[in-house]
């Protein structure tokens, strides 16, 4: 049986009339990188706060690393690391002192702490600037340091709440590489919230999609892609009229049809061929220059799930 790092059963939290988390039941195997995906206000941060034992659930229960979140929050926090919504760095202090403080909080022996600080800062390319006050650093450097902080004491579980939010694409990609390397080297369970699908696809071996506090889907990225995305077909050409779109939407194998940036974007049912669709376009007076077909990305699945939930 797989050992579980997190086991939530019917976890619910309300704030007045608002149901921030609604009957969440989820299991996160130890050693996995778990992506918790959802738009802003979906309940991701509330879930992390509940799992860390910072707030109590209105109903339901959760066990984290084998400890009850209601009664053993101290044990959970002692064995986990967390990068929450904000970096949580003390900007007047140096990078070294920020890590030294949290290392002391984790009761790390001094020699081990100093060695670990050097290891992490060197790996992240921050060692030469270790004595600078963090306030003088760029946003990307601060975020790297913020990620190093919860990994410092090699916890069994790390919560990362949107770790690349607000970074430029280059800094975000570099941070993702660092995170993947650190995670694989350390072998910890990572609970990652994000609304960046590419990030989730690259880092996670298990993802869950949440909206308005409700869990919509859970599985590996490949599972979700095959389950809900359908087959994406992109057709370049000319003469894509509204009549043609209406005709396409009436086809049994076509789930969605739209024109984006002059291209015809279709979602075909799994296993359906694009050939009859192309014939129909030509019959309706369209000109086809290029046809590209492929499995939908995690982002497509995510958007489909959001759309379905919105309609329901």
């Amino acid at each position, binding site marked *: 049986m797989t050992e579980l790092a997190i086991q939530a059963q019917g976890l619910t939290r309300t704030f007045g009339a608002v149901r921030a988390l609604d009957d969440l039941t989820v299991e996160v195997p130890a050693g996995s990188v778990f992506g918790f995906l959802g738009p802003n206000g979906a309940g991701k941060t509330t879930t992390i*706060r509940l799992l*860390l034992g*910072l*707030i*109590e659930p209105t109903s339901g229960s959760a066990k984290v690393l084998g400890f009850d979140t209601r009664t053993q*929050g*101290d044990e959970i*926090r*002692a064995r986990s690391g*967390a*990068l*929450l*919504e*904000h*970096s*949580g*760095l*003390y*900007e*007047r*202090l140096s990078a070294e*002192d920020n890590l030294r*403080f*949290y290392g*002391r*909080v*984790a*009761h790390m022996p001094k020699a081990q702490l100093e060695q670990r600080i050097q290891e992490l800062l060197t790996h992240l390319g921050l060692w030469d600037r270790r004595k600078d*006050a963090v306030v003088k650093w760029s946003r990307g450097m601060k975020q790297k340091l913020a990620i190093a*902080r919860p990994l410092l004491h090699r916890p069994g579980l790390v*919560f990362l709440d949107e770790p690349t939010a607000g970074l430029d694409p280059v800094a975000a990609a570099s941070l993702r590489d660092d995170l993947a390397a650190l995670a694989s080297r350390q072998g910890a369970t990572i609970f990652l919230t994000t609304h960046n699908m590419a990030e989730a696809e690259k880092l996670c071996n298990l993802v869950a999609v949440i909206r308005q506090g409700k869990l919509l889907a859970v599985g590996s990225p490949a599972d979700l892609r095959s389950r809900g995305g359908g087959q994406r077909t992109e057709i370049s050409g000319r003469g894509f009229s509204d009549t043609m779109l209406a005709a396409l939407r009436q086809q049994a194998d076509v789930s969605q049809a739209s024109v984006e940036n002059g291209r015809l974007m279709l979602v075909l049912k799994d296993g359906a061929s694009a050939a009859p669709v192309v014939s129909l376009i030509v019959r309706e007076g369209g000109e086809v220059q290029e046809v590209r077909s492929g499995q939908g990305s995690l982002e497509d699945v995510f958007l489909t799930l959001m759309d379905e939930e919105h309609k329901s």
Partner: protein
Amino acid sequence: MNADFITVLWKEWKEIVLERSASGAGSYRPLILVAVLGIFVPFKMPPERFFSAAQLLLPTFLSAFVITAVIADSFAGERERHTLETLLASRLSDRSILFGKIAASMAYGWLMSIACIVAGTITVNVVNWHGEILIYHDAASWLIIALGPPLMGGLIATVGVLVSLHAATVRQAQQTLAVGFMVVMFGIIFGSTMLPAEWRIWFGKILFTWSQANLALAAASVILAIDLALLGAVMARFQRARLVLD
């Protein structure tokens, strides 16, 4: 608990010192205070007046005033700079965080008052040097030096925590505390004249019949009782789940 308390104290102390040694006018503020109250004022003062117990109220109140700025930065600042939730998500207990922060603020206030007293003592000795060292000679003075700054500091620190937890920003907390401090001080000074005549006679008798040491001990006992009551209120308010949702 002890190790965690020391860890928080260490972090807070570093932040206090670094904030005040950062570039800008702020870095000279502690030195200016010590220069005015520890050198300029004693320089113009006769030794018998400087070494009186009543004169020690000045560094005692200085310590309290310094704490209003530091404590607001420590609590309201932690929330304003978005570092509080990360701190609460650590293994530190609520009490280690609370006591570590209060202790660091009080230590800074105490250090400032002691710096003024030491600088003043040196200044008075240099100005009035006749071959022997002048120093505080009565029990009341030593009681005030030992108990005044920590007890007054504790009072201001606990009030400061309560105000800071309700304030939206550091500036708002500092302004509320500074104004409140002034109101209380002026209230004590001018309010005494509004007391009923019998009360004033009763207080007068105490002031003239009790020794200064007994007066200092009585005042210390009253302030200690207030400190403990406020500490209880602060401990009840400083709860992790509540702070996260704030």
